[in-house]
């Protein structure tokens, strides 16, 4: 009906540009994998030959802990006989400040997720409709249509929609390359900033996810400090999306930008420029609850974001339940530790399995995915067309939905993001077996394509990575064998980290 009338001559009232442009990104070819999965979803018993979903970064490893807590704490929900006496207060509550207990619990949890190395002020916590809403809201607060935000690539594919669609903000990527393991450094940011200014763009700030999506790596403290110093010097904003903060399972501790703000002197950092986006969707595995948080050191931004939070408030009964759950220290400590542990085991299983198939991944210590290197399988190493071809092969022949690097604006073809936390162990084994089978059938083709040089480089890399990985695994295992029960899984004072 609508399509008949829309273009249909004089009678259709026109829609807005936002409603009719493609900036939502859902028509992009990157959804082919999802569409294929929807048509033929894998199920261990019912559809064992279906497509396995490895493109969804969700954390389903610790839902049993949450379930147990909910069952044991009926008072936390207004929907139980024990909790329903709170109903009238909660059902009517729509103050955009949010329940005080909720904000306090979130601030407390955010501190714990960062090992207790930094504290957060509940008055600066602002709600939004999931992290999606939080990223959009912070853009609305900081930038006008046409302004630019620098975003290191590869970056989360949906940023193109979340940061740009309704806000009119532009993204200028800061390209990172495999030559230094995609590490972000200040020089790259400076260069991109300069280039943007030269093309007369109004750069409002820098935004990145740390721990990184899709890389799974964390930024070291020195680089983070230098970035903070840089944005302060140039008087531009810094937004750090720390949605994966508690998914660190190995290696160095996660350093939040909040820690840097605390440690740097007033002359080096202008806190009014620093903002954090957070959510419970990844760390706690609760994307369905739609809890997004904007945390800003800038009072005006907090005030503005708070008014915008009416467009995406967290439902009050969710606030109540989470206030209770996240203030339960014993539960939270145990949860954070278990979650890290299970993620680490799962990550190792995946990377080991991939190694057996001759596939290496970028070394990562966080996140719900790995950044897989399939450059040696490309027909043409410099072509994104080859990457898409390979991707279609993976979807249709190997029957896995992974995400191609180009969907993350990666400048080098051949990288793929593979998620591992949204399935059970059996499914992972099936996936690995499929990869190994496929690789062994096609390994001779691979040998033909790779030049001698490539082979040598690959071998060296594999050796280096093997060494690093085994070292990491060693320290990790020892940590557990010694039965450490500290909430911050990697205590900075632990001597074991030195190995």
């Amino acid at each position, binding site marked *: 009906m*609508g399509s008949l*009338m829309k273009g249909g001559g004089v*009678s*259709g*009232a026109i*829609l*807005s540009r*936002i*409603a009719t442009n493609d900036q*939502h990104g859902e028509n992009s070819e990157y959804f082919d994998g999802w569409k294929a999965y929807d048509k033929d979803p894998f199920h261990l018993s019912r559809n064992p030959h279906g497509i396995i979903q490895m493109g969804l970064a969700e954390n389903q490893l610790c*839902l049993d802990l949450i*379930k147990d807590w*909910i*069952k044991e704490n*009926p008072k936390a*929900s*207004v*929907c*139980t*006989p024990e909790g*329903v006496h709170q*109903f009238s207060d909660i*059902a*009517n*509550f*729509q103050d955009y400040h949010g329940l005080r207990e909720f904000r306090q619990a979130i601030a407390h949890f955010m501190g714990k997720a960062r090992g207790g190395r930094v504290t957060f*002020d509940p008055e600066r916590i602002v709600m939004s409709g*999931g992290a999606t*809403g939080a990223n959009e809201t912070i853009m*609305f*607060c*900081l930038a*006008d249509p046409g302004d630019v935000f620098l975003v290191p690539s590869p970056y989360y594919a949906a940023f193109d929609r*979340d940061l740009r*669609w309704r806000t009119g903000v532009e993204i200028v990527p800061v390209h990172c390359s495999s030559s230094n393991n995609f590490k972000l450094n200040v020089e790259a940011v400076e260069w991109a900033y300069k280039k943007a200014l030269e093309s*007369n763009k109004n750069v*409002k700030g820098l935004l990145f996810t740390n721990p990184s999506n899709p890389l799974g790596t964390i930024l070291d403290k020195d680089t983070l400090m230098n970035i903070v110093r840089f944005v302060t010097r140039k*008087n531009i904003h810094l937004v750090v999306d720390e949605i994966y903060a508690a998914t660190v399972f190995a290696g160095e501790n996660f350093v939040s930008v909040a820690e840097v703000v605390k440690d740097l002197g*007033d002359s080096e*950092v*202008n806190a009014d*420029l620093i903002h954090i986006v957070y959510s419970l*969707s990844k760390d706690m595995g609760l994307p*369905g*609850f*739609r809890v997004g948080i904007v945390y800003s050191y*800038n*009072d*005006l931004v*907090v*005030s*503005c974001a708070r*008014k915008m939070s*009416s*467009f*995406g*408030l*967290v*439902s*009050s009964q969710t606030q109540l339940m989470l206030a209770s759950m996240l203030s339960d220290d014993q539960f939270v400590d145990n949860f954070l530790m278990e979650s890290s542990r299970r993620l680490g085991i799962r990550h190792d299983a995946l990377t080991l399995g991939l190694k057996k198939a001759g596939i290496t991944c970028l070394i990562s210590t966080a996140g719900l995915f790995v950044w897989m290197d399939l450059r040696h399988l490309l027909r043409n190493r410099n072509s994104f067309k080859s990457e898409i071809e390979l991707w279609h092969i993976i979807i249709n022949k190997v029957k896995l939905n992974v995400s191609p690097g180009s969907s993350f604006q990666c400048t080098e073809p051949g990288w793929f993001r593979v998620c591992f936390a949204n399935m059970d162990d059996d499914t992972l084994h099936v996936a690995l077996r499929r990869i190994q089978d496929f690789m062994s059938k096609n390994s001779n083709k691979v040998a033909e394509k790779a030049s001698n040089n490539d082979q040598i480089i690959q071998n060296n890399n594999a050796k280096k990575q093997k060494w690093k990985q085994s070292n990491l695994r060693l320290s990790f295992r020892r940590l557990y064998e010694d039965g450490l029960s500290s909430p911050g899984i990697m205590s900075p004072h632990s001597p074991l980290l030195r190995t």
Partner: protein
Amino acid sequence: MRLIVPLQGVVQGRGGLFVGSLIPCCLFYFLQLYLKRRRSPPPPPPPPDSDSSSELPRTSSRSSLFTRGNSIGRVRVSSRAAPLAKPPDSPYYIGLERVKTDPYDRVTNRDGIIQLGLAESTLCFDLLQRWMSENLMDSLMMQSDGSGFDVSTIAMYQPFEGLLEAFADFMSRIMGGNVSFDPSNMVITAGGTPAVEVLAFCLADHGNAFLIPSPYYPGFDRDIKFRTGIELIPVHCRSSDNFTVTVSALEQALNQARKRGSKVSGILFSNPSNPVGNILSRETLHAILSFAQEKNIHVISDEIFAGSVYGVDKEFVSMAEVVAASASGDFDKSRVHIIYGLSKDLSLPGFRTGVIYSFHEDVVSAAKKLMRFSSMPVPVQRILISLLSDTRFIEEYMAAHRQRIRDKHFLFVEGLKQLGIPCAESGGGLYCWVDMSSLLTSYSEKGELELFEKLLSVAKINATPGTACYCIEPGWFRCCFTALADEDIPVIMERIKLLAEPSTS
């Protein structure tokens, strides 16, 4: 400042080259300077002290070299955020803030400010509470096939089967049962506020405008104008028509807008109306639809109070019914859109439930994608499916809800009548539109705002003045009565009497 140098004369190398290029250059620079000054007035300096109640307490304040007001690099935020440095100037928000400082409590704070500025109902909480405690634990926790508690069903992000159908059925009942709603035309959002904003984003571009009969709900200023950049053009209605909009008024407003160069994309109105509470007749709705058809613009009907109708002789008619009843050739129904939500009718504002119902499939499709920014949490979806499918309870609830509003309305209006204060005729909503012009010291906006302040500080009542609702006749106030207990009403009347006495002497 962008330095764009017109090079034409220079490049073409004609005679008189120097002067020929210099003068246009100078003129051009001066023009840019002028435009820049006009376009961006310098942001207001932030208030030097932070003790106004609307600002946040400054906790970990860092007095650094870089804080606002100092010379080095003032931090630039977006042009939307900058005006928010000032405290709100609409009486609607000012009143709400003041109540927070000294809220009335029957037991612990009998001298506090009584809240009549928030359209919420607590009249039927007992029914809801009982339903929740009897029904909810199972539906929230168990799987639909009864196989036991699986938390992934509420923790994971997925839309729930059956929610749209349950909602469509519920809307049909609420709106009189004379029209059915098609679930495929519905998009569910996290509240009525995002529903209105998302619809606005879909129907109009930045700088376009909606016509809106006034007096109108003050919250629309923020919900619609804030991030979309869409203008709201009030179409003034008069007490002589009981504040019902007329086509001639719409016509006049549209023409004036066009003369100013504004592009009008649609008409937005509430039915039952807010703040007046009148119910638009079938004829009026038809006339609005014809007008929109003729001018080729959208119609947005905010029907969020549809289930809160208490007038005995008034029948609520949804725009969907008008569309369904008209012959198929008359209107292009893809221009009709309806907003709904559970915050008023079911008294569940905290749950955040809103609906966009549109006959335009591209709008539905775009709104579904925009819903990512304000989607309904899964546990709430679960609760709602149970709640809305319990038709027996819904019937019982709606009957009680209407009756209780009717009773409370009667008490409130009677009380005011005793004081010689009349109200506009209304048949729906959670409030009444009160004519307090007899208490004004001067029949003007200034007089009305003075009365508003007197009500807050002397009578200790927060009522929303007509100015905040863009009403052109001074002296009207919106008073919401559905969160009051019967014994609160005489207290309110006593307090208003305090104000009435001095002005009659």
